[in-house]
C-alpha cells in the first residue's frame, strides 16, 4: 500500500469539493489499495455522512448511498415490495461483508477478473494499454456479452442486477450539481477504455438510489456459483414477471456474471409479453438475451448455463409446474 492522506467528509458538499477518492464500507477499496491496484493520494471517508436512510419518495423508495447491504436486504418495505432486491443482496458476499458494504460502494465495486488483481500481469483496466491477460488466459469469471478486444471483465455485483430489473435511478451530486442517472445509462461498456466504467466524473458522489413504484408480479433472483454461498455469480438472473391469466402480462429480466454491467435485453422481455409460458418460449428469450455473445474457451459454458438458469427462474416465476 502507498501512503495516502485521509480525512473525513463533514458534508456532501465538502466531499464533492474534495475531488478525492471516497471510502464508504471499504470492503473493496481497501483490498485494491493494499495490492496497489488503486493508489489514491487522498482518501475521503464518507461513511459518517447522513446518507444512511431508506425513505419513501413518491410511489417508490429513496435508498441513501450509505445504507448497508445488510440493512437494505432486511428492510420490510424492500422485502415486501422489491423482494428481488432483497434476494439479490442476500445472495452476495457474506454476512460480515454485507454489514460493511454500502449501496453506493456496491454499485461501484470493481471487477473480480483475477488478472486485474495481479499487478504482475498485463491488464488494460488496471494499466491502460498493457493488454488483456484474461483473453487467452483463465476466463471462468469473465464476461461473454458487451465485451471488447481490450477487456472481458464482468461486473460482479448482485445488487446492481436487481436494481437494473427494477429500473433504479442513481442520484449523483457533482461539482455541477445534482444529476439523476437511470441505472441503464450509468455503466459504460469497455470498448477501448476499460478503465472507465461509469459515467461518473471526478468529484461525483452517489447520494442515493431511487426505486420507482414497485413492479407487481413474482420477484426472483437466481444465482449460480461455484459454491453454495460466498462466491461471485457464474450467472445470475433477476426476473420480475406478472401473469395475466395464463399468459405473461409483463416481464423484466436482468443478468449478472455475463457482462461488464448488469445486463438487460428489452427484446427478450418483449418476446415473453403476451405469451403462454413454455420451455420453448424461455429458450427463445434466452436466444435473444445471449445475442452477440463472444465467449472464451474458459467461459463458453455460461451460454447454456444462462439458458437453463433463465428457464428455471421463469418457470418458477410463471408457476409452470413441469418443464420438459
Amino acid at each position: 500500500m502507498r501512503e495516502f492522506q485521509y480525512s473525513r467528509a463533514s458534508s456532501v458538499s465538502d466531499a464533492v469539493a474534495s475531488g478525492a477518492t471516497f471510502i464508504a464500507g471499504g470492503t473493496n477499496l481497501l483490498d485494491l489499495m493494499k495490492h496497489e491496484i488503486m493508489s489514491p493520494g487522498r482518501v475521503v471517508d464518507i461513511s459518517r455522512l447522513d446518507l444512511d436512510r431508506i425513505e419513501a419518495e413518491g410511489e417508490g423508495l429513496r435508498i441513501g448511498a450509505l445504507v448497508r447491504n445488510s440493512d437494505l436486504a432486511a428492510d420490510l418495505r424492500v422485502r415486501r415490495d422489491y423482494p428481488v432486491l432483497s434476494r439479490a443482496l442476500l445472495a452476495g458476499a457474506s454476512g460480515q461483508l454485507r454489514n460493511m458494504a454500502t449501496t453506493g460502494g456496491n454499485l461501484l465495486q470493481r471487477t473480480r477478473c483475477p488478472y486485474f488483481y495481479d499487478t504482475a500481469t498485463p491488464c488494460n483496466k488496471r494499466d491502460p494499454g498493457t493488454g488483456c491477460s484474461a483473453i487467452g488466459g483463465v476466463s471462468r469469471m469473465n464476461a461473454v456479452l458487451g465485451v471488447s478486444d481490450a477487456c472481458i471483465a464482468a461486473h460482479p455485483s448482485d445488487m446492481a442486477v436487481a436494481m437494473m430489473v427494477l429500473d433504479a435511478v442513481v442520484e449523483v451530486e457533482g461539482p455541477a450539481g445534482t444529476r439523476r442517472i437511470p441505472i441503464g445509462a450509468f455503466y459504460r461498456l469497455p470498448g477501448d477504455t476499460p478503465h472507465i466504467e461509469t459515467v461518473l466524473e471526478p468529484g461525483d458522489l452517489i447520494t442515493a438510489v431511487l426505486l420507482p413504484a414497485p413492479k407487481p408480479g413474482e420477484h426472483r433472483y437466481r444465482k449460480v456459483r461455484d459454491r453454495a454461498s460466498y462466491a461471485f455469480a457464474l450467472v445470475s438472473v433477476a426476473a420480475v414477471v406478472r401473469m395475466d391469466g395464463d399468459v405473461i402480462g409483463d416481464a423484466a429480466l436482468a443478468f449478472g456474471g455475463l457482462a461488464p454491467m448488469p445486463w438487460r435485453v428489452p427484446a427478450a422481455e418483449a418476446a415473453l409479453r403476451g405469451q403462454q409460458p413454455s420451455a420453448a418460449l424461455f429458450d427463445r428469450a434466452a436466444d435473444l438475451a445471449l445475442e452477440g455473445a463472444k465467449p472464451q474457451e474458459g467461459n463458453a459454458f455460461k451460454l447454456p448455463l444462462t439458458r437453463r438458469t433463465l428457464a428455471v427462474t421463469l418457470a418458477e416465476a410463471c408457476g409452470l409446474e413441469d418443464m420438459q
Partner: protein
Amino acid sequence: MTRHRKIDHPDDDNRLDSMAQGVLGKPVDRLEGPLKVSGLATYAAEARPSGMVHGVLVRATITKGRVTAIDRQAALALPGVLAVITDPRMVRYSAQGMADKGPKAGPQTVDYHGQPIALVVAEGFEQARHAANALHIAYEEEPAPVDPDAVTPEMPQAKQKAQGDLDAAMRDAAFGIDSTYTTPTLMAAAMEPHAAIAEWDGDNVTVRAALQMLASDRKQLADALGIELERVRLLAPYVGGGFGSKLGIAPEAVAAAIAAKELGVPVSVALTRMQEFDITHRRSESRQRVLLAAGADGVLTGIGHEVLVSNLPDSPFSEPVTQATPFTYQAAHRRIVHRIARVHRSCAGSVRAPGEAIGVTVFEAAMDELAEAVGIDPVELRLRNIPDREPGTGRPYSVNRLGDCLREGAHRFGWSQRRAPRERREGEWFIGMGVAAAVRVNMLIESRARVTLTEDGAKVETDMTDIGTGTYTILRQIAAEMLGLPVDAVEVHLGDTDFPPAAGSGGSFGAASSGTSVYLACEDLRTRIAERMGCAEAELRLQDGRASFRNDTRELRDLLAGEVLVAEGHVEPGDAEKQARQATWGAHFAEVAVSRYTGEVRVRRMLGVFACGRILNEKTARSQCLGGMTFGIGMALTEAVEHDPRSGHIVNRDLAAYHLPSHADVPAQDVIFLPDRDGFAGPMQAKGIGELGICGAGGAVLNAIYNARGVRVRDLPATPDKVMP
C-alpha cells in the same frame, strides 16, 4: 530416565483399558480453546519483540530464468526501507516434510512464477510491501514448460509395479472399466498464513514460526543458514492449521533469519494470502486412469491405476496417488504406473493426505462405475473384493475393518433406500446416494517426550505441535490416564525445540507417535511409583492422585514426599510395521441433490464410519473427521487452482476465488468410530485419524451425483457447468 521402545512386535495388552482414571477417549474440551477464542494464544506473526521490523518477500514475475539486476537504490530511497536482501542462502520454496536438509537455495535462479527472489525490509509492513511491489528487477528469461500434458513424463522404475497380466485380464473380463479422471491442483489453504519472526542472540537464532514438524524443521533451517543445529531454536506453540503446507521450513523463515542477522534486529516475515498461493506447496494436479476387470459376479480379476502428476525438475516429491491401491482390493492381475511431468509450476508437496485424498477418491468413483456395469450394489461390490491378506506381499493385515465400516455405514445411513439413477426427484432436484471406501496408510514416527511428576501434578514437554488438531488435549489425557490424575492436574508444553524432539504433526502420525512417547514416559513413572508401593507396575492402580495396590491406598503426594520424578519416553518404529499391512479404514456415505437445470449440487447429508484404532478424544477425533469430510466436499465440488496457461502461475490466488467449501456447502455430517484396537500400532493401539476423513469422501459425493442425475463427472471438481447435462 528414558523408557525406550521400538515397536518390533504387536502389543495387544491394551493396558490403557485397565487404567482407572477414565479420561482417555472422553470428549474433553480443547485445553487451549479459551486462549484461542480470546486472542491470548499468540500465533507466529503476532509476537512483538522490541525493535522488530518487517520483511516482505519479492516474487519472480517470470516462469524460468535468472535475475540479472535488482534496482536496490530506488527501493532504499522509499520511506522506511532498510534493506533489500538477496542472500544466496535464501530458498526458492519450502522443504518437503521430514527432509534433513534445507530446500533449494539461490533465489537468483527462477524456477517458477511467484518464487521469492529477494526480501525487502522496512520499518512498517506496508512500507515493505510497497517497496517490494515497486522493486525493479531485470531478468534473463528461458522458455519453460508449464503444462503437464505437454511434456514427456519421467517414469521412475521403482514406482512402477505389476503382477500378472492386466491386459489379458481386461480382455477376458466379463466386465471392464477403463476410465480416466483428472483432479486439479489443490492448496492447503490453512487459516493462518505462514509467518516467521527471527531474533538473534549472538550466534544463536530463535525463530517463531508457523510449522508442523519442529525437529526436522530445525535441521532444515540450520542447514539452510549454514550453522550448527544447536544454534537454532524454533518456537511454534500455536499453529493455525497446516494441512501439509507447514511440514518443511519455508522461504519466510530462512529470509527472516538472514535479515535479522544482517540488520541486528528482530525481523518478521509474514506471507499475505496471495503469497500463500504463490509460494507454498501445492498438491499436484493428476490424471488418473483406472482399469478394472471383473467377472460376472463383480469379483475383480484385474486392477490398474496409471497416474500422471507433476513437479519441478529437481523436487524429490511426487504425489503418491496410488498409495492405497495395492492393498485395498484383491485381484490377481495388477499394474501401477506412476509418471511425473517436470514442469515449472510452483513446487508440489504434501497437502491434506497426499496420495489417498485424490487416489482413493478417484478409484472409488471408478468402482462405482463397475458396480453400475455389473449391476450389483456398490457396497456389495466392495465387500466381495476385500482381500484376506495384502495382495502381492501376502502379509496379513494388522486389522482390516473395511467391511465392518461399509456394513455399519450402510445400515446407519439407510442405504437400502437408494434407488436407480434419476429415480428420486423432489421438484427441481434429483436426489441420489453414493458410497466410497476410506483407506489411508498408518505410520509411526520416532518421538520423544518428557513427563515431570511433582506433588502438584504432571507436566508434559515435547517439541510436538498442535496445529489446531487437539494435541495439547490428548497428551494431557494420556498423561492423566496413566498417572491417575484429573486432566486439570496435567500441564502440556509444546512447540519448542528446547523440549525433546517429537514426530511433529503430519501424515496423521502425530497423535499416536507423540502420544506413545508420553505413554512410555508415564509407564516409567508408574514403575517408580509401583516400587514405592512395593508392587509391580501392572498391579498398580492410580486414580485421582492416589496410588493403590490391593487394599493399600496412599496419596501420590505422600509417596513423592517432595521429590520430583522426571521420565522421558522414546518410541521408534520397528519390525511390526514390516510384519503386517497397517492402515486405517472407513466408509463414506453421501446424499446429494442435483438441480436438473443448472447442475448445482447440494450435499444433503454425509456419514463417515471409521476404524482407526483407539480413540484418544472423541471430540477432537470427530472434529478431525468432520474437517476431512468437508475437504472431501471441496475436492468433489468446489476446489480448484487455475494455472495460467502461459506462465503456469496460480491465477485464483485468494479465498474468494479458491473455493473452499463454505458453511452453506456443508450439511449435517455424522461420524461414527467403530471400537478398534490395533496392537501393531504400538502400546496404545492408536492410529492416525486426521487424514482418513478426506480419503474417499469426495468419491461418495461424486457417486451420489451419478445416482441422482445419471452424470459421471470425471474432471474434478463437479462445478455446475460439468454437471448440467
